[in-house]
């Protein structure tokens, strides 16, 4: 495990959630999945949101990733409220400023590793030469330079998650949100993935928010938030940023 390698350059809040509340309707019942949750991710943070299944952590991640809207409360990105933004503007924010890593990797099966990584750059209309260069760099960063042409079904679970991490990083987003990134991996591979994320935070100051129910992830966190029954019930800061 890498110790003491968090990003020590802290910036302004990137992502904030203010009194986030989310209701779901199950049949005739209205279920409160999140209850007035306040959350802030500062640039350079490595935050883990920990909690059991059904605690509301994925709901929180969906709201922070701007792929779902809160029933009440507000999500702010770079200090700007997002509640009144139209769908197209939210898509643009996700495309350009947010990187996402999913529990089940969610790679496009008909594309190679390099093409999966390239996909977000196609959405941002990045010129071809620059796309190729950035894909090459980021695949090298996650240790998959030699497997760029392989399709997802020709890669192991850990390799697929590395491709997913590369895809999340390739647009140089302001923040990367990871939903249970180790849940579908064996413990050794999970460790490798967490060390990769931690390294990217330490070396490149990429801001991470990882939601997980896996206790093995917690040691990698700079800050741990515990969520239960839709509420943040605890916060622990495990590593202090080094002075500039």
């Amino acid at each position, binding site marked *: 495990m890498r110790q003491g390698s968090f990003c020590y350059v802290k910036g302004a809040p990137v992502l904030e959630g203010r009194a986030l509340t989310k209701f779901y309707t199950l049949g005739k019942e209205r279920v409160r999945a999140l209850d007035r949750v306040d959350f802030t991710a500062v640039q350079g943070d490595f935050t883990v949101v920990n909690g059991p299944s059904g605690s509301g952590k994925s709901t929180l991640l969906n709201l922070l990733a701007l792929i779902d809207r809160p029933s009440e409360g507000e999500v702010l990105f770079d200090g700007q409220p997002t509640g009144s933004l139209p769908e197209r503007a939210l*898509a643009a924010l996700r*495309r350009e400023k947010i990187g996402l890593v999913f529990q089940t990797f969610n790679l496009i099966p*008909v594309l190679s590793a390099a093409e999966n990584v390239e996909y977000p750059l196609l*959405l941002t209309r990045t010129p071809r030469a620059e796309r190729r260069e950035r894909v090459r760099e980021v695949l090298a960063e996650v240790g998959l330079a030699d497997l760029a042409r392989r399709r997802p079904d020709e890669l192991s679970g850990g390799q697929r998650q590395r491709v997913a991490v590369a895809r999340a990083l390739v647009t140089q987003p302001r923040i990367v949100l990871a939903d249970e990134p180790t849940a579908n991996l064996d413990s050794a591979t999970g460790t490798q993935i967490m060390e990769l994320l931690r390294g990217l935070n330490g070396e490149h100051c990429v801001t991470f928010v990882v939601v997980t129910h896996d206790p093995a992830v917690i040691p990698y966190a700079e800050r741990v938030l515990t969520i239960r029954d839709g509420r943040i019930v605890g916060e622990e800061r495990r590593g202090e940023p080094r002075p500039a």
Partner: protein
Amino acid sequence: MASLALRNLSRNRRRTLLSAGIVALGCALSLVVLGFVERSRALIQESTVQQFGNLQIADPNLLDGRAEGFAYLIDPVRRVQVEELVRAERGVVGTTAQLSLSGLLAVRRTTAVVRAVGVVPENGVLDYNDLVVEGRGLRPGDVGAVLVGRTLAEELGLRPGDFLNLTATTVAGAFNVSPLEVVGIFRFSSAEVERAQVFVPLAFAQLLLATDGVDRVVVRLDRLGRTWAAARAIGARLRAAGLALEVRTWDVLSPFYRGLSAFFDLLFGFLVAAVFVLVFFVVLQILTLSFLERTREVGTIRALGTRRDEVFRLFVAEGLWLGLLGGGVGVLAGLGLSLLFNGVGIPWQPPGTVEAVALGVDLTPAVVGIPWTVSVLSTALSAVLPAYQATRVSVADALRAV
């Protein structure tokens, strides 16, 4: 996006092949049927022009069947004037004049009402001599000679060298009868024409009706496609010259052609609609299933920042690729089938005709282009609804889909 859409077709090859196969089958069948219709239409066009020439110029009352007496006749002075005006038009190969009359044809103890068409023999424009299958055609200098149709000859037992009488009313209203020698038997595509029409020299028709006039000037053009533009131009020339005559094109002159052509259009329209509907609904089902299976993937690409309209375009592009693939294969299969038909030459007798023709398929750009375009469009359109549905699902729900 286009590349991704194409690759998506490789996910489930069996399903893609099934969809493309249905599109190809529809396209190939449409192509063959359209080609057959076009070949049949061309044959009928050819025989219609063979019967009427490209254009006819006559009194509108005659052309509309409203003529009373012989006021419609064109006297020699006006005939020359008309022919000079017509020959000045581009694409005119030549002109000739005709005089038709209704008469009673009598041979031995049998009679038949016929329409005798008086033509200028060997006029180089339209003299019907090329239709003669027995005996000879009309020659310059012939007066009391007649060509009878094959069907009429069979019914009356006529042979070249036989004599018959033709009775008609002169322009002055008197009965006139004159003997004629059967010099030739002609065939025609229509049994009705073979039975009810005979050809006589123009001089004979004029003699029988006791007139020096004609009832129409027939115009032959260098190509069929020029017909309608030439008709407009000649019509304008006639009006400018103060001639109260009208120009009619071959298709207007032949109600049979118009009816058959309309029937062909209806037949092909129905076929195209049937193929369109079949392809549309089958491919709709297949694409709906295919897109449903990828709900989570839609959630993923939406989460990565793909807009709804981009997802929509991606899925419609998939339908378009499928249409291009199926349509392409369909065109190749249709061309193969058509060449096979054309090579084998299956005999077929069109309704109302007396002679079998080789069943053939005309391969024109339209024959190939229309089925292909319909196949591609129907396939692309069938992707629209499932593509729209794919864009409506919420990203969070789509990501949770199994």
